[in-house]
């Protein structure tokens, strides 16, 4: 199940389909601001997704999901009143607006401008939209992945493959009259494999994800997905644990950017900073990293999972330079934090859906290229580890402690990759880790995996990219 891309004027999807007229929008907005308030947003969402799964050699399960509703947020200073309805009737929307309005108890009603459509740049244009792709095409594709996976290595005993696609139409309306409509495609392909040799069994997999239609799955990407799933699984058969303790860590280009996300990115989300609870709260315009370090959070990288045409407050997606020449230049702002700091929003106000209010979030968080050859970085380490792939991470924002779980990698001995290693948690302190990045490679890759970030109970799709880097010292959860 999918939603066709709206071909009418912005706002037409909800006006034609659900009777949400400009006059009704103005009434609901006026109700939300009837007791005053600095700001308000109405966020409408209509989303539909389809998934298919192969197991036991059969494509024997599928699912569809439809979400429809509207969230209304009223902001008074840094206070938020929020309510949502899954029923797009005037009565239900007015009731939700009245509930959200209660956060402002003593103010005068605000004047609300008539909605005027604003067009935004589409960073992820789709060639083959999912509403025109039949189930048979999806079924054939994941069956082909399974067959290629089995053919790649005789030690593979089981393969599960799946894919999901989604389309979402959102409409955001603001008190100044801005009305933005955005169409948001997404797809994700996934393979899980199990290898068995004697008594030993190992399971792993790979996935690819992006904002695109069927054209996302070109032959090269499908080949990478199959190869990565099988290579990562059979790699585990021969891998062991690294030694325990603090040591130099070389992070491979691409998925290693989970370090950026956990150790650094969350601490630069402005809500933690305006509250004074982030370890970066007093570090604006101060040096926090080596001069070779440039970090951006970018919503304009086409077709990435973290691409944002417009954020969920109606601000255009943009590229935000967080760290330049090692100096912290700005945070990622939503409207509340931008007002607090007296700066423009950075297009970082995102939400999981209409059931949640927006907060500052990452999009595609990227460390840009440095001057070093990746091989020189490996050669520079006497004894340490080289991290290739990861599964998850976590951070304590204020203390700065972070962790990420390395799934596969190598021991580095005398500047060479030697024994394969697996399944270790790596832990450190964000600002210290940033300071300890002392070599930055020239091979930046944006990982194409389906990363999802959780914060305040809300999940949003994100991307991340990084060149090979050396961190002089991190704590590796090995043995011995």
């Amino acid at each position, binding site marked *: 199940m999918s939603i066709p891309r709206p071909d009418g004027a912005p706002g037409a999807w909800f006006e034609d389909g659900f009777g949400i007229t400009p006059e009704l929008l103005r009434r609901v907005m006026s109700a939300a601001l009837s007791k005053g308030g600095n700001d308000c947003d109405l966020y409408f969402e209509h989303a539909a997704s389809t998934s298919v799964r192969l*197991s036991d050699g059969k494509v*024997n*399960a*599928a*699912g*569809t*999901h*439809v*979400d*429809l509703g509207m969230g209304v947020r009223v902001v008074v200073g840094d206070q*938020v*009143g*929020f*309510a*949502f*309805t*899954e*029923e797009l*009737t005037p*009565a239900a929307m007015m*009731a939700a607006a*009245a509930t959200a309005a209660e956060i402002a108890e003593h103010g005068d009603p605000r004047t609300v401008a008539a909605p005027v459509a604003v067009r935004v740049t589409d960073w992820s244009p789709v060639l083959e939209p999912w509403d025109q792709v039949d*189930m*048979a095409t999806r079924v054939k594709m994941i069956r082909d992945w399974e067959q290629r996976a089995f053919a790649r290595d005789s030690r593979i005993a*089981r393969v599960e493959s799946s894919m999901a696609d989604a389309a979402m139409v959102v409409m955001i309306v603001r008190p100044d009259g801005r009305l933005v409509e955005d169409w948001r495609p997404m797809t994700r392909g996934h393979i899980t494999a*199990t290898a068995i040799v004697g008594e*030993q069994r190992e*399971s792993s997999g790979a996935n690819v994800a992006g904002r695109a239609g069927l054209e996302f799955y070109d032959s090269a990407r499908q080949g990478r997905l199959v190869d990565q799933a099988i290579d990562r699984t059979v790699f*585990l058969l021969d891998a062991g*644990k690294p030694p*325990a*303790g*603090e040591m130099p860590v070389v992070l491979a280009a691409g998925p290693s950017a989970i370090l950026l996300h956990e150790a650094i990115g969350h601490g630069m989300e402005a809500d933690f900073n305006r*509250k*004074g*609870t*982030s*370890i970066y709260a007093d570090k604006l315009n101060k040096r926090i990293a080596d001069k070779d370090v440039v970090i951006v959070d970018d919503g304009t990288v086409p077709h990435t999972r973290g691409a944002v045409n417009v954020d969920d407050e109606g601000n255009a997606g943009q590229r935000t330079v967080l760290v330049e020449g090692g100096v912290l230049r700005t945070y990622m702002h939503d409207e509340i934090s931008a007002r607090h700091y007296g700066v423009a929003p950075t297009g970082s106000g995102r939400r999981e859906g209409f*059931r949640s209010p927006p907060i500052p979030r990452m999009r595609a968080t990227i460390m840009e290229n440095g001057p070093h050859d990746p091989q020189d970085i490996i050669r520079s380490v006497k004894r340490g580890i080289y991290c290739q792939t990861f599964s*998850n*991470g976590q951070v*304590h*924002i*204020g*203390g*700065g*402690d*972070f*962790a990420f*779980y390395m799934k596969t990698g190598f021991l580095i001995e005398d500047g060479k990759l030697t024994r394969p290693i*697996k*399944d*270790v*948690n790596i*832990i450190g302190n964000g600002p210290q880790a940033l300071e300890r990045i002392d070599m930055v490679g020239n091979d930046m890759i944006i990982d194409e995996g389906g990363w999802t970030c959780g914060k305040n109970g809300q999940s949003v799709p994100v991307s991340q990219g990084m060149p090979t880097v050396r961190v002089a010292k991190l*704590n*590796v*959860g*090995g*043995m011995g």
Partner: protein
Amino acid sequence: MSKHTDSKHADSKHGLDSLLDLGQRVVSLARELGADQVRAGVGRGVSTELSRRDGHIEKAEKSRSLSVRASIMVDGRFSAHATSDLRPEALREFLGRAVEATRFLEPDLNRRLPDLETMGDADIDALDMRDASWDDLDPAYRQARCADLEDRVRAAGSDLKIRSVTTYAWDGSSDHVTVTSHGYQSAWRSTSFGGGAVISLEDEGGRLPEAYFTTGARHQADQLGPETIAKQVIEHGRHRLGGGPTASGRYAMLVENKVAGRILGTLIGPMHAEAIYEKRSCLDGKLGQRVANEALTIIDDPLLPRAAGSHPHDGDGMPARRRTLLDRGVLQEFLVDVYNGRRLGWEPTSGDVGNLIVPQGVRSPQAVLATLPQAIVVEGFLGGNTNPASGDFSFGVNGVLYQHGHAVRNISEMNISGNLFELLDRFSEACDDAWIWSTWRTPSLLFHDIQFSGS
């Protein structure tokens, strides 16, 4: 905040008839459109959350939800669907497309509905999952609770440099309905109340460690008191100050009751029949074998009145029952749902767990620590993961290093690593402090000779 009523939630205070009607309508419609078997689930929820930061309301949030799930079989083919767009014409179109999409799949008769005679409910009234006082909850209650808690947190931590205090209170009501095309139906209701506090402290080196404490209960009267919450969050905060790694090595590890479920949870994933069937379980072939020290017993009891994980039936509609998963170290039962049971040729035992209980021991954590020359008390985990196929695990930890019962330094930026079987074999004692405000109801747990990596 006042309540409002709309047509989707018109009987939110008065029973479940309209939800059962909706479930029946979904079943009838799907059958009419070509489905052979249908299982419809209807969920309705109303919840409110208030948070207060440093003396001011930060966020007031109210949500109402109503959605439908439908699992359908069409010519022996299976698919599962969900929607919150319940307009009659939209629902019909949604189910019609679902039926048509299902025809493209391959048959899997293991997905058919469970036999009707295996389905049913435990005594819903005895579970006592709904607090009628929620219907008339005074909106001022949340504000008062948040303000009171903040005052108590600041008082308990008056000697600390507190950067920020956020307190929150939430409550809600959920209604659950299941209807099938072969005549099963179930309806039950529950409430939840909860709250907690998050503090941010000023520490050396510009660090701002945070600590949090959250609890919940089915009934308002069962909630943990604000004095206890304040004491706990401040104590955790003190243990985050000046923390750092200590030397790598093997230590006794006492995992605090509130977080012990995280470490024992590594055992639950591989118990599921799906993991066994898909050859991703390190417990495959170990039923009836000793997989942990004989000091460890784990009971699954979904029938505890008012408890967080209690439920009248599992996801297949099988009546909930108490069972022993691990008896003195011996694996007694896998978590077998109907579908994976059929794939494996095994009788289903239920794939869902309710309240997981580790029987408590006789010594307090303090008494245990006093007998140990050195031990690390783990109060929290950071990141980490488990390989369910091999049992290898690695987790970040924070807590306190004790020597002969005395706290000597706060610990952070450390990892524990090993293999699940090795870890469980090194379990030695459950303390007397069972924690009951979670689906994991465990006391603090002592393990010996655990690998910590630090400085």
